[in-house]
């Protein structure tokens, strides 16, 4: 009896382990964010395009919004930029940018040349805001609900598929549940 059960159980356990571990769609470097379900970290930064304007999370209170962390040094951010422009065109949700480890001139040039999908872009001079949000790379995209809680985080370049499947339903659900 055991001579049969033990190898079969071991085989099933290994098969499950491999199915999960070797899944090509799984990004082994993507980590779950401990911020999910918690209050979004506050920030009050100057705007990349206009240093006299503030980008303040307090002003976004009561709104569902998307925070996209990017930088001109980040190749994958260039890759997702057209998708962000397309998303901005849909006017579903305000897109807030967080320009990370960057230079203002370069960021401004990037947005002027490629188009600006953001409602406003906070300029994170010294990376402190990024640390508060648990950012460890770019691009990273957060979804914040009307109560100011982080409800989703996506690490990797945004695609139309991810936007439709992961963001749009969550935005709708966040709006339905009030706020």
């Amino acid at each position, binding site marked *: 009896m055991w001579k049969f059960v033990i190898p079969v159980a071991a085989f099933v356990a290994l098969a499950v382990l491999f199915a999960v571990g070797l899944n090509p769609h799984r990004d082994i*470097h993507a*980590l*779950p*964010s*401990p*911020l999910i379900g918690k209050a979004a970290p506050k920030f009050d930064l100057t705007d990349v395009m206009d240093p006299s304007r503030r980008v303040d999370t307090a002003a976004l209170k009561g709104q569902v919004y998307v925070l996209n962390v990017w930088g001109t040094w980040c190749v994958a951010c260039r890759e997702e930029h057209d998708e962000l422009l397309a998303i901005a065109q849909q006017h579903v949700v305000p897109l807030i940018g967080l320009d990370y*480890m960057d230079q203002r001139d370069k960021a401004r040039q990037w947005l002027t040349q490629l188009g600006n999908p953001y409602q406003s872009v906070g300029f994170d001079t*010294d*990376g*402190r805001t*990024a*640390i*508060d*949000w*648990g950012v*460890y*790379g770019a691009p990273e995209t957060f979804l914040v609900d009307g109560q100011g809680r982080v409800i989703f985080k996506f690490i990797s370049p945004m695609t139309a598929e991810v936007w439709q499947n992961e963001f749009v339903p969550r935005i709708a659900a966040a709006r339905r549940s009030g706020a």
Partner: protein
Amino acid sequence: MRFLRPTLKLAALLLSSVLSFPVLAAGSVDVYGELENPSLQARYEHITEDLRCLVCQNESIADSNVELAADLRRQVREMLIAGKSDDAIFKFMTDRYGEFVRFNPPLTPKTWLIWGAPFIMVAVGAVIIIRVARQRARLPLDDEPASEN
């Protein structure tokens, strides 16, 4: 001569490794220099060695040259100077980056398997060894003629 050459080679190798050591040490990634208070510096080194650099996930932030690691080292340094406890600093990091940021995760219900796995494996191994040994003890010795059983 035949004996001298390898010895010389060895000596040169040893010498070069000894000489290169201070160079490696001087290549440390810290831009701010050491903390003035030696006990703070010791805590700083201990904490930064226990925090994972999430960009290059097998390096600590003490070892990494990545910009994020430099920002996190600055954060640790500032919190130490501000008089924060080690626990407060680790909590600051895990609140933002999750338990994975620690190389040495604390023993909690979620991590008991990590800490317990080596003991479980030793126990499983011990059970197997004991069972095999007992089975062997019951077997006849190889050199005994089979007819005697």
